[in-house]
């Protein structure tokens, strides 16, 4: 097999991202002032916008590296949303990073782009080794980004940041070998590293052990319930704009990697993995939502709510067919937009004071009505109330799961959504009912406001008119489920 220029053409999007990465790298090296370093942030944002635009200009389809990488409707769909997530997070975080890590802004943006590159490559990977490497490329930068803020003179905060970052790092580096060992066992039983060959695996206990190890390794990265301990601590201590990224794109990446192996690779062997995934799903749904009830810190509350959401994702994966994947994708988009928006609002409200307890939100409606309004909408979307996009996402996942015969799981999920409504509305109650401690409105930087606005438009727009998103999700899911494709096509949408 030789690498041809055709292979590189298939890799257009990742290559464009790499080009942007080099630009940012050069900009970082070339500048030395704080203002210059902030420029790398803007360069990252506008560069990502350009790459996003380019996805509409020349969508490519085809296979590269002898079928190890494929570009099709699915990769196009996911790439776009990852780029959107990256761009919004960069935009919303520019101010915070300039303030708190002024000398490391270049590295921060660079690492964000590296992480995005890993994600964009992962979604097209059809080979277990490539999949794992892409996953590592997407997750290793995050360890550093979590520790990017170093405070002078605030020893306690510094320790807190270090604690969260170290926990994240340790969990990350310990879970990778576990997943790797699982993958090695799976590959040994299959005799090949390609996803398409997974179907032909000999059913042996070693394969099951491998799957179990893989699930637990990925479980750590995802933060599903028995493996979730690092999530609240890291979220609490890391900068909120980064958490907006951490809580969305990497989780989706891990879920996509799982889906690639389980749903698309082992699609005819679902009896191998459904019991384990069901257990994880129920545990995550129940415990995540109940633990969120007692939280007094917004970030910790959102961390546990995020854990709960992973449960809904897994419910969609359990369906295991084209519809399930389509609903999964719809949920991905809804979750990306909503969660990023929520954490950006948290940054706007709590970023300056560094105090993220729920009481800080008291009387927000009287201080900054627009901020309170958008926070309310994001919370409603997280809870799944009509007519924001979160409602449709939950509804579609429930329908797909019901049809696949998981009625009891749907009932559990719906009941827990009501539990979740309680703690989401608790923040809303504090915002609208309580008396504010400080009267003056909150000063929000335009970049941060723009980031919130993009997410807000997204959730309201897709909430009012979900059909285009649904259709593109369906097309992407169909492309995803083809493991041995003869013809690869891209539908422009």
């Amino acid at each position, binding site marked *: *097999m*030789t*690498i041809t220029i055709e292979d590189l053409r298939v890799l257009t999007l990742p290559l464009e991202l790499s080009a942007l990465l080099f630009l940012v790298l050069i900009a970082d090296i070339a500048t030395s002032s704080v203002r210059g370093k902030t420029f790398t942030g803007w360069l990252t944002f506008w560069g990502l916008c350009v790459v996003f635009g380019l996805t509409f200009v020349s969508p490519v389809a085809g296979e*590269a*590296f*002898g079928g*190890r*990488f494929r570009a099709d409707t699915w990769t196009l769909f996911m790439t776009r949303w990852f780029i959107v997530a990256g761009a919004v997070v960069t935009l919303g975080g520019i101010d915070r990073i300039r303030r708190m890590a002024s*000398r*490391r802004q270049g*590295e*921060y943006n*660079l*690492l964000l782009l*590296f992480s995005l*590159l*890993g994600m964009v*490559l992962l979604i097209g990977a059809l*080979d277990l*080794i*490539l999949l794992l*490497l*892409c996953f*590592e*490329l997407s997750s*290793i*930068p995050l*360890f*550093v980004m979590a*520790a*990017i803020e*170093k405070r002078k003179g605030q020893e306690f905060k510094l320790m807190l940041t270090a604690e969260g970052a170290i926990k994240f790092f340790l969990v990350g580096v310990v879970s990778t070998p576990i997943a790797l060992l699982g993958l090695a066992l799976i590959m040994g039983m299959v005799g090949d590293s390609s996803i398409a060959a997974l179907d032909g695996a000999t059913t*042996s*206990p*070693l394969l099951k*052990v491998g799957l179990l190890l893989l699930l637990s390794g990925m479980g750590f990265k995802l933060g599903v319930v028995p493996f979730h301990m690092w999530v609240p601590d890291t979220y609490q201590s890391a900068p909120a704009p980064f958490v907006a990224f951490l809580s969305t794109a990497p989780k989706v990446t891990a879920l996509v990697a799982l889906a690639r192996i389980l749903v698309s690779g082992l699609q005819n062997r679902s009896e191998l993995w459904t019991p384990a995934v069901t257990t994880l799903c129920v545990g995550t749904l129940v415990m995540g939502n109940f633990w969120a009830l007692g939280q007094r810190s917004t970030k910790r509350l959102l961390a546990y709510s995020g854990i709960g959401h992973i449960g809904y994702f897994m419910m969609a994966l359990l369906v295991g067919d084209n519809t399930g994947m389509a609903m999964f994708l719809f949920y991905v988009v809804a979750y990306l937009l909503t969660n990023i928006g929520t954490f950006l609002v948290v940054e706007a409200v709590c970023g300056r004071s560094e105090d993220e307890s729920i009481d800080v939100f008291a009387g927000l409606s009287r201080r900054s009505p627009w901020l309170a309004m958008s926070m309310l909408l994001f919370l409603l979307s997280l809870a799944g109330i009509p007519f924001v996009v979160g409602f449709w996402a939950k509804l579609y996942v429930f329908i797909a799961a019901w049809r696949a015969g998981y009625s009891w799981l749907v009932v559990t999920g719906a009941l827990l959504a009501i539990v979740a409504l309680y703690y989401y509305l608790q923040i809303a109650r504090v915002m609208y009912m309580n008396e504010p401690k400080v009267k003056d409105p909150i000063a929000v930087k335009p970049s941060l406001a723009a980031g919130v606005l993009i997410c807000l438009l997204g959730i309201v727009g897709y909430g009012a008119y979900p059909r285009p998103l649904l259709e593109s999700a369906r097309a992407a899911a169909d492309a995803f489920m083809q493991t041995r494709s003869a013809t690869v096509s891209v539908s422009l949408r």
Partner: protein
Amino acid sequence: MTIGSVYFFLCAIACIAGALVTVVARNPIRGALGLLLTIVGIAGMYLKLHAQFLAAVQVIVYAGAVVILFVFVLMLLGADAMERPTGNRSPVARIAGGIGIAAIVLFTAYRAIQVYSRATNGHFPSLSEDFGSVKSVGKQLYSEALAPFELSTALLIVSVIGAIAVARTGHKRTALSPNNLTSAHRFFGGPVEPRDAAQPITKDSTL
């Protein structure tokens, strides 16, 4: 029992003993040496599998660089800098955990032996002549495994950038004027160790 299987069991025992020492040793330096033993044992197993190239690279990279870096960090911190693990878990939990892990390991090993004995009846494909040679590994790396290979370089760059970003303290190095450049600076550009040597010795200075 052929010489080959004696060799295999020697390597296997070295691996497991090394791994145990790594985990159990109270002294971190001994732990690092246990790791070394494991790595050399694994390299020995690669040799048995005709993967000579891999064995050599394993020794160069892991024994020659990774363990050495561990050791270096331990020495910089001082071996006593590490807190001795204090047992704050109840013995019941420890024993239960130990039994659980042992059960999983034994079960896996048992099944592995089952699969192995089933598969040795001609199930494993025979290897080609140049399997594991430098040439075949190189061909694989630059054709079929090119994408992962190149990606791993990106991974290394990320690690380097990340390590620097985390470790950098933001101290500014004092600028040197052309006048006080020593020949060492001109040739090697590095910091000169005895920084106070330039200070003139006065009557007050005690030696």
